[in-house]
């Protein structure tokens, strides 16, 4: 991958993927799948976690290995509000403290394991990862999702898959203009990225691609285009309010695109979809829209995954003028890999990248020519061009 500099060949530079994992909220999936009264084993942030619902209904996340003799709590049993180790039945509470040892008179001092702060919101379970061990940052609270758990909307349609590469590849996608054509199946007429604070937003208006429109029943309205307002809230959780504009109606959908790292070389990619039911779009039709959309999203990601599996990690991408703000997005993303005290202004200060094709080049050109002509006239001569 490296070549002598005098050859004029550009070298691909790539440091090893960081072994530190991003600070922030990470979605572990739909909350309901953890509510079966059993402990669940999750590989995340380079370690093994146990997720369990305690008797009080709360979902808890602990380090999976018992601090007594290293038993795997995710192979244990939920007993009341505690998870019991399969090795010697030590009982651990959701707060990480050992509550009881059935065969001992008292629990030793410092019997405390790592507990992750959790958030059970909009039907999803989130954990707060923080290498510094601080509680969740208030300013990074996750937004409530309109329509989630609402009868007016469909239930979550949810997919997850393991991807064997570093998470940075999926983040890069956010600034990649071209992927709208392939993943979101539209011709963008307007595109804007705004990176500021812990949010990386992406606004897009597009015209429908004839070959890829959500299928509605016979005699349905015609699809004209769509508008999308998407944003990463923190390092791993993106919501996309995606509205399909038909000639007689708008179909509102919300797409979630999120992930959590398994280790520095793999992650779990997840996406979820809900669709608003409305006049002309009953439960069945809304589910059909959700299914069709999910299919296209899945195909898009499958193409991405195929690329990711085989591509090189690259710290110095050679961008052309038509590419999106990949470097600025990575600069924003870096804030989650340093201590809070080390966040640099450049990582969080507002950056905007806009592409507006609704005003054609000819309009700009004409205005420039008019200006030059007016200036020349004022100076009493004809413009030189």
């Amino acid at each position: 991958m490296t070549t002598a500099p005098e050859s004029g060949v550009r070298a691909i530079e790539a440091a090893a993927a960081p072994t530190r994992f991003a600070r922030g909220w990470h979605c572990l999936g739909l909350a309901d799948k953890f509510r079966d009264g059993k402990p669940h084993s999750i590989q995340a942030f380079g370690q093994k976690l146990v997720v369990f619902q305690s008797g009080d209904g709360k979902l808890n996340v602990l380090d999976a290995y018992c601090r007594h003799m290293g038993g795997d709590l995710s192979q244990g049993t939920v007993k009341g509000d505690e998870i019991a180790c399969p090795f010697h039945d030590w009982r651990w509470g959701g707060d990480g403290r050992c509550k009881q040892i059935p065969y001992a008179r008292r629990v030793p001092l410092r019997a405390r394991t790592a507990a992750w702060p959790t958030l059970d919101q909009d039907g999803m379970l989130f954990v707060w990862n923080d290498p510094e061990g601080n509680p969740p940052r208030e300013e990074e609270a996750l937004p409530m999702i309109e329509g989630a758990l609402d009868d007016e909307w469909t239930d979550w349609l949810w997919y997850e898959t393991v991807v064997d590469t570093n998470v940075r590849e999926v983040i890069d996608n956010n600034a990649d203009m071209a992927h709208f054509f392939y993943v979101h199946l539209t011709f963008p007429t307007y595109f804007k990225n705004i990176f500021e604070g812990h949010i990386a937003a992406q606004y897009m208006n597009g015209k429908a691609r004839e070959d890829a429109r959500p299928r509605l029943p016979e005699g349905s309205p015609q699809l004209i285009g769509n508008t999308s307002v998407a944003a990463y809230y923190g390092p791993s959780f993106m919501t996309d309010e995606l509205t399909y504009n038909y000639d007689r109606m708008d179909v509102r959908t919300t797409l979630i695109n999120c992930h959590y790292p398994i280790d520095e070389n793999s992650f779990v990619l997840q996406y979820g979809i809900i669709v608003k039911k409305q006049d002309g779009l009953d439960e069945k039709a809304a589910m059909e829209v959700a299914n069709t959309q999910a299919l296209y999203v899945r195909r898009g990601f499958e193409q991405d995954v195929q690329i990711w599996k085989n591509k090189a990690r690259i710290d110095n991408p050679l961008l052309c003028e038509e590419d999106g703000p990949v470097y600025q997005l990575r600069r924003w993303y870096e804030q989650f890999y340093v201590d809070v005290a080390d966040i640099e202004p450049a990582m969080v200060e507002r950056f905007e990248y806009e592409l507006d094709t609704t005003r054609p080049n000819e309009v700009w050109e004409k205005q420039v020519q008019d200006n030059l002509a007016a200036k020349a006239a004022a100076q009493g001569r004809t413009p030189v061009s």
Partner: protein
Amino acid sequence: MIRPDNRLADLPMTPVECQRCHATVQVRKSSWQQTSVQWDEAGARTCLERRSSPSGGSIRDTDFFTCAGLRESIAQAALSGEIPMVEGSAPRGGRGPAGAPAEERAVTQ
């Protein structure tokens, strides 16, 4: 490690002052359609529209999508040639003379 955008080596960003409130931001246009804007803390503090937006300029509620005054100032600066554009994307004869009066070429959409 934060690396610089390789495209900035060909054409760096140019400061543009808002005609309305005199907030200064860094701007780069690769074409007539494309605009990049880098804010800093001083610019954000000065911008009137940003300060008066309900969220105080946060993109969380998407109510500070853009500053109209700044948008217009950038368009004017582009038309008058104050913002250099990447070679090849400027229209024929479009590199307007720098410092040309901007009043008559307000761009609004």
